[in-house]
């Protein structure tokens, strides 16, 4: 019972995630939305990947520019294993394919980790960047293992399921992804509470001190790196099952960068930060990119805003509310937040409109697109929309400033009260 009480958040998340795809269910045709399911599966995979990246960055203070190498190599291993299973050479249940990827990641984590973990800090980052470049170049050159440009394709319908599921529909795959994502996340969470996990924190904070309590920081880094490789490989194995293909872009620097962005946006302060960040990043990349050509610009702006105003990440921002919540006065923040919302939206809208108008006049117009809002085509050559955008941006900014000041006052007062209350109790 206490187990249930302690882990209610996990259970709730599971229920919500299982129910969520039904929001997009096409009742008329009686089928799930493949797009929504694939996107959510992608989020699941990337969440595992981001969490494993955080094992290095958040826990051990190691910034890797080549983490996707472990993800991708794990995926290649899983793909080869699936093809062997399909050919009847070996037997492995479909459900355990991600484990094959994990073992692949583990192996390469061990080998590449031997090189990379010889150093820390910037040197580590640069070694991983070099390894990333080398492996992604090799992925194009060597046909045997990587299948060249075309990659390795698989058929996930292997009829070796332990549960008798054929995995023909995205829904079945999604459930598998969900299961593995929960297992992997739980394992990674538990790993933070092991001696290795703690010593990784310690070596991050002060690697020299870690030496003088008997630990070899390099060994800590190496094992941590290897384990992170294992989990990244699990992600890779799931990736193979979702897309049924693995190509060189899974080992690319862009993939590594995604993990870094997800972890940073989500925040390294709490275990769930990277998951939150992943959701934002995947939605930005796969969702916003459908709507706007300028999505990369939004990503850029988002980073700059996050780095400048909220370097603690989304969970950090949420965490700031904890004292007030504990004091039971979170409700009093509701109104200030609501008041700040319209100007914030105004700024956002003004900015988005401006970017879209510019992007549209310079690039989009020629592509034969119509710039439409609510079904009405907007004439981008007339000054009206530009004026609206500028006014919204300017007024919104001024208004937001005012509200922000009021908000700040209220926040400080509440914080003060909360502190006093906590001190008294």
């Amino acid at each position, binding site marked *: 019972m206490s187990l249930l009480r302690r882990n209610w958040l996990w259970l709730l998340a599971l229920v919500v995630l299982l129910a969520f795809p039904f929001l997009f269910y096409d009742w008329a045709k009686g089928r799930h939305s493949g797009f929504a399911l694939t996107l959510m599966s992608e989020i699941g995979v990337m969440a595992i990947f981001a969490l494993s990246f955080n094992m290095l960055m958040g826990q051990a203070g190691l910034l890797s520019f080549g983490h996707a190498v472990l993800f991708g190599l794990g995926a290649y291993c899983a793909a080869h294993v699936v093809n062997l299973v399909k050919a009847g050479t070996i037997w492995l249940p479909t459900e355990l394919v991600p484990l094959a990827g994990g073992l692949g990641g583990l192996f390469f984590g061990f080998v590449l980790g031997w*090189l990379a973990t010889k150093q820390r800090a*910037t040197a580590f980052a640069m070694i991983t960047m070099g390894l990333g470049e080398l492996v992604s170049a090799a992925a194009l050159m060597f046909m045997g293992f990587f299948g060249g440009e075309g990659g390795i394709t698989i058929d996930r319908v292997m009829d070796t399921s332990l549960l008798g599921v054929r995995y023909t529909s995205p829904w079945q795959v999604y459930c598998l992804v969900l299961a593995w994502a929960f297992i992997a996340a739980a394992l990674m969470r538990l790993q933070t509470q092991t001696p290795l996990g703690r010593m990784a924190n310690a070596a991050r904070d002060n690697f020299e001190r870690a030496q003088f309590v008997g630990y070899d920081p390099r060994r800590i880094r190496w094992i941590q790196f290897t384990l992170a490789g294992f989990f990244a490989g699990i992600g890779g194995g799931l990736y193979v099952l979702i897309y049924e293909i693995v190509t060189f872009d899974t080992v690319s620097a862009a993939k590594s960068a995604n993990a870094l962005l997800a972890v940073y946006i989500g925040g390294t302060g709490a275990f769930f930060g990277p998951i939150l960040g992943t959701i934002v990043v995947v939605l930005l990349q796969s969702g916003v990119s459908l709507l706007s050509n300028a999505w990369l610009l939004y990503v*850029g702006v988002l980073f*700059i805003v996050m780095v400048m105003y909220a370097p603690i990440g989304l969970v950090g921002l949420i965490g700031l509310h904890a004292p007030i919540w504990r004091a039971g006065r979170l409700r009093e923040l509701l109104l200030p937040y609501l008041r700040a919302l319209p100007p914030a939206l105004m700024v956002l809208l003004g900015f988005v409109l401006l970017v879209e108008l510019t992007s549209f006049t310079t690039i989009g117009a020629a592509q034969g697109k119509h710039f439409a809002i609510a079904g009405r085509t907007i004439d981008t050559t007339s000054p009206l929309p530009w004026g609206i955008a500028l006014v919204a941006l300017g007024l919104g900014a001024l208004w937001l400033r005012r509200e922000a000041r009021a908000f700040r006052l209220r926040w400080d007062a509440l914080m003060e009260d909360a502190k006093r209350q906590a001190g008294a109790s």
Partner: protein
Amino acid sequence: MEVFVVSLLNGLVYGMLLFMLASGLTLILSMMGVLNFAHASAYMLGAYFAYTISLYVGFWPALIVAPVLCGLVGAAIEMWGLRRVHRHGHIAELLFTFGVALIIEKAVQMTWGLLPVPYRVPELLDFPLFRIYGTQFPAYRAFMLLISALMFGAIWLGLTRTRVGLVIQAALTHPDMASALGHNVPRIFTLVFAAGTALAGLAGVIGGNYQVTEPAMAFTMGPIVFVVVVFGGLGSLTGCFIASILMGLIQTFAVVFDVSLADLLAKFGITVTASTPFAEILTVTLPRIGALLPFLMMVLILVFRPRGLMGTRDT
């Protein structure tokens, strides 16, 4: 022999271009600890600015104005962005520059379009300077060599003969001591960042027409610059210089030697056939991986000598 001489010249030209790009990053990375991902974006901006300016007033004013504009952009980024981010640590700074790089790329696409722009070598320099074994050596390449040599001299003089230069030099080797020297550290940071960006811009001005000016040029130039800086070693301009030339020469000469590991093994009487294990790797010839050698060298040097070639401290 003729291949050797021509390759040497080409390697030098490319190496010097790399040095122009990398010298600015060495200053920024060594002193501020910022892994500046927007550095190659400054290179791109330099090329585009120069293109636009040269449309109106010609190449020669652009040679001065475009780097200055880049420097101003750099100063603005440092003063209104990086400085605020600085206290959040190096990863925050890195991500900030990453965001800036994305924005610059998109801005360039929106301003100048997605296609390459016809940024050409100025007519004054558009002639073959001399012929060597039948191969023309364009005057523009000699000009590039000249500019980069001048720049190297200018930096060197600036660092050794001026007061600010001496402070920067001290800060290069001991960044944490910079504030103890009683100087206005933020201003020096801004100066260094702006100067580094301007140097990258200058590299863009003379490299943009030597290569192709297009929105992806920052993306393709980015990693190699980091390699040069790290290989040369933090805090050492000389190391950066040597590393640049070395990388230029290696990539040039790797093309010339058509050998593979299999050839090497053949010398020892082992023949590699398609059925040999790892035959695919063994038969790769040097030119095929020439462009990857810098990365390989960087990994190796960092593993065994983390301070790089001439670095004053560990990376």
